[in-house]
């Protein structure tokens, strides 16, 4: 019996020690830090408080969720302390570790951030979380070295990250800027083979060739850049934060509205927007303008010009007066049948921000008015804009088709003749290109690019 009591006593002491430790540890946990965020969003503070309550009694998962919510609203330092706490709970959580390093990076503590990113080498990556991937965190470390002005270490780290395009780009750029253009060109050309339409590699190729004095090749590279559309992401900050920023507050409601768009139920959309607007109230925040604009669009679909005009006045009262607003107003007048008013507004839109849609609307109007000269002018502009889009997307055959249409409808537009010449030149028809530049210059003798290109064609022919 004595032995049994001694055993129980020992167990009691051990339990007291162990559970006492647990209680002490629980009591010593810090309170989740919360910023005063009432003024940035009407809803977000309540959500922060609820997440903080969960974090207070929770583990790393809850602290990460709070950290992500804070990060999504730009509270980097508050988020940092949450992620740090999460790493203490679960030192093997790659998301917590990467997010902690990211917060240090964004708040300008590059050295500390690099140290924390380096720790990720021993973690298991989480595919859904950028920067837990080796390529991403090595790239982030390289950027930290660049931001600290340490070109040598940046180069070294980018060399360890070969075949990751952003790292290849930064490495090639360092080489171009330190007069090692030939070395850079091999990296650039490898990447352009993989991604021929990359803007940044194209631009770097142009810079390298220009530095080497290879002017003809540099010119060809510059031509390609003009028709390149592919963007290689060089900064993952926005990609990292955006999912978190749309999880909370007004952004969450707007996200819910965006999901409703698929249903195309305008009454339902209008109701949802009213709800969002009520939440925003009169607070000065960008979502106020964005929501009002969405409301105007929905009312246009609902063919409700009176409400459109009322909402436009509200936008104007909030200090917004731009081409979009004029176009909406014109839309309202089209609905009320006040076409003259609409046309006058659309002419103003054209002076500010000409678009295919506006030119097409005016072409239709002049068709109804039986004014073929004005109709053809606007149809020619529509065709020119289509040609310019195809040209910049490097779809030269469809660009050629549209530009031909444009110059036939209006042979007096120097801009159309310039693009005609550019398209022909790039398709190898130098005779037609020369004719195009000459026609452009006849209409506008001061078109600098046309003068330059015409001189080039003439000098290569002689």
């Amino acid at each position, binding site marked *: 019996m004595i032995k049994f009591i001694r055993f129980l006593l020992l167990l009691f002491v051990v339990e007291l020690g162990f559970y006492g430790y647990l209680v002490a540890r629980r009591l010593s946990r810090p309170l989740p830090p919360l910023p005063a965020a009432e003024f940035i969003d009407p809803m977000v503070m309540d959500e922060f408080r609820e997440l903080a309550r969960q974090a207070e009694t929770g583990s790393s998962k809850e602290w990460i969720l709070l950290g992500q919510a804070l990060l999504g609203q730009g509270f980097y330092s508050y988020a940092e302390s949450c992620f740090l706490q999460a790493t203490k709970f679960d030192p093997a959580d790659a998301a917590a570790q990467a997010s902690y390093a990211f917060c240090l990076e964004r*708040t300008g503590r590059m050295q500390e951030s690099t140290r924390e990113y380096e720790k990720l080498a021993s973690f298991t990556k989480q595919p859904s979380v950028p920067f837990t991937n080796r390529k991403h965190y090595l790239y982030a470390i390289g950027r930290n070295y660049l931001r600290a002005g340490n070109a040598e270490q940046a180069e070294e780290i980018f060399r360890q990250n070969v075949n990751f395009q952003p790292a290849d780009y930064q490495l090639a750029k360092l080489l171009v800027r330190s007069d090692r253009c030939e070395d850079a060109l091999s990296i650039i050309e490898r990447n352009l083979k993989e991604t021929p339409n990359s803007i940044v590699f194209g631009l770097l190729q142009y810079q390298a060739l220009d530095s080497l004095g290879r002017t003809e090749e540099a010119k060809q590279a510059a031509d390609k850049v003009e028709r390149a559309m592919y963007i290689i992401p060089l900064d993952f900050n*926005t990609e990292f934060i955006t999912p978190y920023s749309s999880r909370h507050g007004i952004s969450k409601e707007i996200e819910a509205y965006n999901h409703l768009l698929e249903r195309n139920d305008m009454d339902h959309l209008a109701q949802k927007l009213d709800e969002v607007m009520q939440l925003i109230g009169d607070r000065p925040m960008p979502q106020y303008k964005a929501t009002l604009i969405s409301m105007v669009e929905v009312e246009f679909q609902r063919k409700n010009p009176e409400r459109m005009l009322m909402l436009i006045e509200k936008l104007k009262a909030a200090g917004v*007066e731009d081409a979009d607003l004029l176009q909406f107003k014109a839309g309202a007048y089209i609905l009320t049948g006040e076409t003259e008013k609409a046309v006058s507004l659309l002419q103003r839109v054209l002076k*500010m921000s000409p678009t295919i849609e506006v030119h097409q609307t005016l072409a239709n109007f002049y068709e109804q008015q039986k004014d073929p000269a004005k109709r053809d002018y606007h149809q020619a502009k529509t065709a020119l804009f289509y040609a310019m889009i195809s040209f910049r997307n490097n779809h030269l055959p469809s660009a050629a088709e549209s530009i031909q249409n444009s110059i036939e409808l209006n042979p007096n537009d120097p801009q159309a003749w310039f693009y005609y010449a550019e398209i022909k030149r790039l398709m190898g028809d130098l005779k037609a290109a020369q004719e195009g530049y000459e026609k452009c210059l006849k209409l506008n003798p001061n078109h600098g690019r046309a003068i330059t290109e015409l001189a080039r064609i003439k000098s290569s022919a002689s």
Partner: protein
Amino acid sequence: MSLKTRALILTCLVILIPLATWFLLPGLPSLGQAPEIFSGGTSYPASQLKFKRATVGPDPIGLPQITNVQIMDFNGDGRNDILGCDAGRGILSLFTKDGEDFWKEEVLLRDLAAPAHATVVDIDADGDQDIIVSILGNLLPDDRVIGRVELYERKDDEYVRHVILDDVRRVADVQPGDFDGDGDLDLAVAVFGYNRGAVLWLENRGDLKFRDHELLNAPGTIHVPVADYDGDGDLDIAAIVSQDEEELWGFENLGEGKFKKRRLWMTVNLDLGSAGLISADLDQDGDQDLILPAGDNLEDLDAYPQPYHGCLWFENKGDWNFESHQISDLGGTYAADVGDLDGDGDLDVVLVSMTNDWYDPETASVVWLENDGKQNFQTWQIDNNPIHLVTVAVGDLTGDGHDDLVAGGLNLRKPFQRIGRISAWLNLRKDKP
């Protein structure tokens, strides 16, 4: 107590302790010390030179988007006025003083698609002031060819619009100068663009017609200040190329419309955030220096001040050599101007911030850097309100001979408080100039 009783009590305790802990532990409060929250924001000692803040024009409504302010005697009445570009409303406004600290707003130009800058100049040499507007086309990142240079020719009491450059990407700045020595004014143009851009010069061919010439093919040029940087008697062009490039360029005028491009400085710090460029003889040694405010990080959803933000002074050492000196670390610095604020005969620098740590209410939005005459600068905080300031100008607004300040707010980012449109800080110095 019998051994049996002792055993029973201990058994109960051994069972109860884990149960009680399991039950009570989650409900226990957190009593640990809250972590210290880091702030990378910058604040400075309060300026001993006192200023009075005033609102220029009507009170702000919504989230104003002012892109540029200038101080000049626009109407030629001998008193300085304020010119402001409002990208949110697509207008250029003139603010004339009407009372002790009240300015009346008159809209000079409307229907401007995101104007970045207005240059007031008699471009046709007919004796009146015309206006050249740099049109971005879109304030937000956009790589389309939506930029323009619009010339508003003054004719009696109205302005006649001429588009003198289009089919280019977003235009951020235009500066005049006779570059080819033919007696008329040509223009230097910063095509900021986004992923692609350029520096151009427009040759004045008379009759308000201009021919474009490319000087540099690079994205992100913000400003193109014109001055005789090499002291050879003709006007050269400088340009700051931002985005991820962060390069300072000079275009040496070789005469007859020929230029030699020179990269004057660069940094590998792709995040420096060059935000503008002005020229001034800061050390008053007879040549033109360059001053670079740095702190743009609009590429982030929520920008944050960085340790390398602030202001760089490029001291002109002659023969196109410029020596860089960091003269301020103001977080999120977006614009600079110079003036003799304390009236001691040397040039001081004024800076404004777009993205300091605004969640810390002490951080500075307006500072001045006092020059001790040897280009050692002491930073003094003028204000922390309004915030999100992107443009600043120095000049005498009250006619007392002392330099005052005016600044404009581009309210694109959180927090949505301390909102301003155009604000002035009137210099309360008492001594006579």
